[in-house]
């Protein structure tokens, strides 16, 4: 290289001091923004947001490429060299919240993660997601997150805190140092904890899970010698028996299980193989709703049922349980289990019960077929006794330092008071909580951890199955990875990122493999998962004796359960998307409540009547156990056991957890108790009427019965296999006479009509059922199919849609006014006799814009704001809408949603959301970072609805066009389809004969295909597949059997 110097001007040539200063300071003018420490606290003007965004993206790119060591995050599917504005980048990563695991892909736009999608390369979650996974991106932009480390409630620096902690540990002694975490499935983190423990000999690591699986872990240790959980293969199970395990909603690993479960539920006329699912439960769960046979029992009876099932399987003993239905189902289930390919799961946290369940599985030959002991599951590792011991030690003053990560025992420990008292006796208390939660408030130091979207990391959900975590954005606040903190307290000088990379480089061997792994997100052994059994060595007799010994009381029992949306609580309590996601069964938002059966409600003067629909204010009752009592509103849930009251955990949070979390519900954790071995999630309680003011609950769906209307179709497997044409016959009866030409005399079937298949019926009806000429739809015609058999009502689609389409959160009081905005809702219908919980059958029906080809909404809009695209989409021009709401009125499906208020703070009216001037959490500048720039943020006063994710469709079409090839089937996917863990949604171009949607409707599932409200000739582009239950009778299909329908509730 030549040494010649080029100068750009005289200043440069002379190199004056002044010039040097100028040259150093490239941007010599002040930036148009106050880039100060209070940047994120400042209320940024809306118009500055783009400037800000543009600048920060650019600055981040330049700064990171020039001055900092480059750490490259490898894009997943699309591989741009750089960030292209307007083009999303995708990064494979991992969602891990305790043992809650999902392999994900982060979609970032202009440097901001805006959407989480499932990673299909993972053989565990297989691209499925849950509502929480979908909503996790919103937690990143949570206003209540801590923005700097705190010491004694004051802002502090990491250095100062590190020094204090190290000093303190050395002072108090290593032996009395504890690390308390939730289940950690990250191998590198475990190694770092190991290093810490090694550095401070005698220090201990205690694992504590708010939702304990201690009973299972201990039972498995006793039965199989492994303190671990097996992998359950629901896809391989022919008979599934669940004893109170809500495995599709909340139990253990719902995404994984939903994926597997739905495989066995997808039935067609050609393949009539359908698994049979028995559910024994106390409350009404989504899993129970999906079950073929369901019986209710008290929580304390679960062990007895397990014993009875064991006896029935092994000895063929007739069960003698508390109800005839239980006896009947146990006998049936035992018979089915004996056929093989059975699987029994149990939600109990009792070691004895789990031992008996293990024994049943062993006897029925599940081990090695549906239960895999070769590849186990790391999802849960906490042992209740350890935590009890720690609490005792703290109170005894034996703990000098306590570092807590991922746990919040002051809130969710069964004896939180004792823990808090103990905590006060600990000299050094450190929390890595991301917010001032109940525990962090009582800690001396709070060293906030990154959000997972800001972190490097990894996970090992099953031995040998790895998943890498890479950030989608640089940390927003002055936070530090937990691992970095530990490394620093250990005295190591490496950063976690380096440690992590070193670890994986060593493990994988080469940069190439590392890049690949990072790009894929998962590292898995080749081929199918190994499957092996185990040698059962449990003491069944002892377990059964213990169960026998526990006398169930005669009174009411309380069950503390996890809600599908916010789970055990944590940061999820403050996630407005999840708070507003209606519970699949109760369809209630923003609160917890006392779920009781209609019969029990009658005793509490809260009878289920038509008035129930009108009055949001529910009677408040007192739930009293030995050591705790709560006043909660009554939620009447058909299908609850009559002697059970169920309360969701995760509510009743401290105000500092966040605004969405505060004032929602009450804390149910104190009802928990410790039985000497494990934590019990049940309690004996008394229920009393009170004279308290009724409490208003925000319920999204108030009517329970589908009134026998042919909007959902349910058949028993028997009916369907005998006559797969049963649905087609019903449809012909409804619309056949309009489909066949010439029109026939009413009531008589014409010859032409008789031999019509599904397609001819639809085409005939389209053409002949109207006086108008038929519109041709050449080219693309989008269509969607929803399988009612596969839908488990989990709500992942609801939240996925909110994230993708910037759907607004409206808050509790507007949900009460039925002002919610969800583009997709999951209607839940009960049928059966309210007084008899065992008779209740529940069905879910996802409902979104049906994109009718003859859309009633389009005709009535005076300004043309909604009309039909040539691709069959019912489209909205928000810009044009004046908000007459006529379209919503004229929508038979009621899927149009009006922007009643300024939900997004996007309007010219300043600061208005609620009448008293309150703004929502979703309305501040930080939270609005989550908005998808591809989707218009709707202003106040306009109508909106599902668009079939038209932005995604356009994107796919354009990318295909750029590549000069036709669009491929499966490329265009809607957000709901992508979020769905059961693949219930199929989407595509129906005009493409090769597309899966076309094949599904015309070939594979033509017998199960139906359209909602087909007779009014709206010609929907969404079809449903009828539900087929592997049961004896469909209650809701008949007025005589469905009392719910007769009672009009």
């Amino acid at each position: 290289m030549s040494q010649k110097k080029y100068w750009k001007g005289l200043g440069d040539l002379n190199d004056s001091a002044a010039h040097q200063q100028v040259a150093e300071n490239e941007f010599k003018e002040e930036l148009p923004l106050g880039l100060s420490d209070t940047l994120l606290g400042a209320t940024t003007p809306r118009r500055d947001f783009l400037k800000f965004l543009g600048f920060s993206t650019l600055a981040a790119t330049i700064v990171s490429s020039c001055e900092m060591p480059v750490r490259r995050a490898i894009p997943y599917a699309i591989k741009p060299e750089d960030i292209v504005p307007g083009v999303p980048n995708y990064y494979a990563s991992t969602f891990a919240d305790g043992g809650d695991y999902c392999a994900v892909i982060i979609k970032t736009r202009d440097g901001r993660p805006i959407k989480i999608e499932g990673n299909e390369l993972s053989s565990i979650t297989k691209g499925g997601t849950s509502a929480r996974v979908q909503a996790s991106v919103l937690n990143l932009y949570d206003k209540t997150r801590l923005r700097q480390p705190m010491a004694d409630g004051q802002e502090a620096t990491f250095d100062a805190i590190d020094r204090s902690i190290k000093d303190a540990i050395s002072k108090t002694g290593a032996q009395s140092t504890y690390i308390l975490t939730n289940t950690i499935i990250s191998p590198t983190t475990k190694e770092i904890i190991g290093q810490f423990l090694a550095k401070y000999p005698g220090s201990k690591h205690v694992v504590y899970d708010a939702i304990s699986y201690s009973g299972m872990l201990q039972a498995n240790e006793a039965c199989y010698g492994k303190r671990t959980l097996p992998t359950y293969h629901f896809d391989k199970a022919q008979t599934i028996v669940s004893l109170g395990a809500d495995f599709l909603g909340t139990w253990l690993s719902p995404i994984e299980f939903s994926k597997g479960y739905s495989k066995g539920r997808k039935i067609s006329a050609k393949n009539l193989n359908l698994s049979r699912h028995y559910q024994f439960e106390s409350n009404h769960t989504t899993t129970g709703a999906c079950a073929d046979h369901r019986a209710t029992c008290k929580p304390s009876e679960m062990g007895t049922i397990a014993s009875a099932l064991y006896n029935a399987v092994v000895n063929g003993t007739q069960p003698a349980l508390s109800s005839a239905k239980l006896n009947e189902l146990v006998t049936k289930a035992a018979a089915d289990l004996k056929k093989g390919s059975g699987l029994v799961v149990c939600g109990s946290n009792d070691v004895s019960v789990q031992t008996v369940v293990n024994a049943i599985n062993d006897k029925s030959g599940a081990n090695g077929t549906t239960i895999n002991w070769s590849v186990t599951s790391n999802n849960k590792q906490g042992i209740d006794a350890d935590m009890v011991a720690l609490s005792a030690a703290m109170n005894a003053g034996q703990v000098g330092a306590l570092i807590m990560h991922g746990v919040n025992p002051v809130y969710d420990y069964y004896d939180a008071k004792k823990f808090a008292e103990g905590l006060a006796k600990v000299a050094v208390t450190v929390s890595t909580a991301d917010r001032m939660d109940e525990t962090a408030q009582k800690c001396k130091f709070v060293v906030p951890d990154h959000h997972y979207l800001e972190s490097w990391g990894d996970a090992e959900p099953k031995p040998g199955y790895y998943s890498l975590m890479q950030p989608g954005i640089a940390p927003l606040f002055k936070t530090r990875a937990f691992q970095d903190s530990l490394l620093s307290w250990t005295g190591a000088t490496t950063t976690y990122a380096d440690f992590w990379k070193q670890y994986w480089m060593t493990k994988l061997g080469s940069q190439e493999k590392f890049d690949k792994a990072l790009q894929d997100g998962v590292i898995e052994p080749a081929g199918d998962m190994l499957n092996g059994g185990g040698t059962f060595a449990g003491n069944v007799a002892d377990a059964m004796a213990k169960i026998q010994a526990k006398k169930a009381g005669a009174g009411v029992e309380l069950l503390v359960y996890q809600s599908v949306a916010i789970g055990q609580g944590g940061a999820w309590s403050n996630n407005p998307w999840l708070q507003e996601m209606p519970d699949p069964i109760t369809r209630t938002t923003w609160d917890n409540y006392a779920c009781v059966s209609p019969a029990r409600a009658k005793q509490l003067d809260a009878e289920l009547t038509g008035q129930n629909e009108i009055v949001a204010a529910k009677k408040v009752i007192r739930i009293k156990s030995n050591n705790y009592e709560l006043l909660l509103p009554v939620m009447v849930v058909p299908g609850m056991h009559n002697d059970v009251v169920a309360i969701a955990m995760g509510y009743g949070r401290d105000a500092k957890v966040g605004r969405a979390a505060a004032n929602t519900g009450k804390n149910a954790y104190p009802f928990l108790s410790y039985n000497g071995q494990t934590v019990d999630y049940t309690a004996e309680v008394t229920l009393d009427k009170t004279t308290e003011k009724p409490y208003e609950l925000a319920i999204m769906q108030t009517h329970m019965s589908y009134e026998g209307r042919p909007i959902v179709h349910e058949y028993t497997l028997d009916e369907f296999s005998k006559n797969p044409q049963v649905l087609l016959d019903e449809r012909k009866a409804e619309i056949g006479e309009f489909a066949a030409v010439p029109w026939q005399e009413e009531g008589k079937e014409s010859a032409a009509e008789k031999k019509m298949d599904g397609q001819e019926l639809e085409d005939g009806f389209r053409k002949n059922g109207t006086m108008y000429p038929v519109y041709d739809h050449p080219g693309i015609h989008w269509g969607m199919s929803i399988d009612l058999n596969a839908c488990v009502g989990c709500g992942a689609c609801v939240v996925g849609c909110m994230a993708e389409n910037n759907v607004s959160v409206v808050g509790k009081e507007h949900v009460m006014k039925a002002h919610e905005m969800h583009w997709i809702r999951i209607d839940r219908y009960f049928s059966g006799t309210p007084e008899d919980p065992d008779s209740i059958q529940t069905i879910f029906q996802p409902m979104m814009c049906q994109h009718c080809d003859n859309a009633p909404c389009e005709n009535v809009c005076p300004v043309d704001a909604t009309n039909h695209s040539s691709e069959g989409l019912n489209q909205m021009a928000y810009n044009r809408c004046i908000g007459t709401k006529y379209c919503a009125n004229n929508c038979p499906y009621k899927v149009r949603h009006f922007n009643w208020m300024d939900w997004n703070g996007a309007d010219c009216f300043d600061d208005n959301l609620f009448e008293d001037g309150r703004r929502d959490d979703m309305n501040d500048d930080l939270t609005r970072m989550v908005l998808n720039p591809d989707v218009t943020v709707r202003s106040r006063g306009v109508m909106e609805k599902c668009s079939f994710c038209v932005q995604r469709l356009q994107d796919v079409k354009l990318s295909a066009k750029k590549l000069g090839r036709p669009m491929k089937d499966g490329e265009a996917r809607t957000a709901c389809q992508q979020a769905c863990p059961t693949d219930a949604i199929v989407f595509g171009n129906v005009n493409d004969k090769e597309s899966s949607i076309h094949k599904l409707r015309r070939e594979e599932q033509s017998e199960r295909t139906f359209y909602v409200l087909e007779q009014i000739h709206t010609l929907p582009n969404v079809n449903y597949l009828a539900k087929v239950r592997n049961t004896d009778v469909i209650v809701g299909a008949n007025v005589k059997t469905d009392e719910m329908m007769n009672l009009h509730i």
Partner: protein
Amino acid sequence: MAIKKFAVACYDDEAVLFPAVAKVRHSGYKLHDIYTPFAVHGLDNAMGHKESDLHIAGFIFGLCGTSTAVGFISWILTGDWPINFGGKPHFALPAWIPITFELTVLFAAVGMTMTFCYLNQIMPGVKKHVFHPRQSDDYFVMAVELNEHVNENDVVNFLKETGAKETSVQIAEDSWWYGRFDKTEPYQLLGQ
């Protein structure tokens, strides 16, 4: 549009008015006009006026409304900007009937009223000479134009004989002008 001199006779009964009209017309005096407080049926015939053609104007305006509506809407929805609304055809004539009808009525009514105002030369701000303040109350006021060919007193006496309650001679503008009813006009001062 000229200031003229009039002999004015006021009657208080239609029964007296009608013979008087006939007599005046018979006499050859130039009957300027008759002002009545309400529509006296047959007076137009008695004065020799033709039937009004106002309704024809209304019909033509109505036709304009119909063709505007049908033409405009069909051009918009089939030619200029055809859109698929709910699968209905672009040329959806039955759906346009309401608006077509409304526009027909609107055009006819507005057009005819404007024609009415134009023909009667009335509009806000227009002023005309009021021969007697009770002409809108209970008097039927007949104005006979005076010119150089007739004797003023003859005319007045003649009118008195026809049964007029009151008579007078007035100088007045015979047509309309822009003015205010609370102002006295210069020509009226001239006549004093």
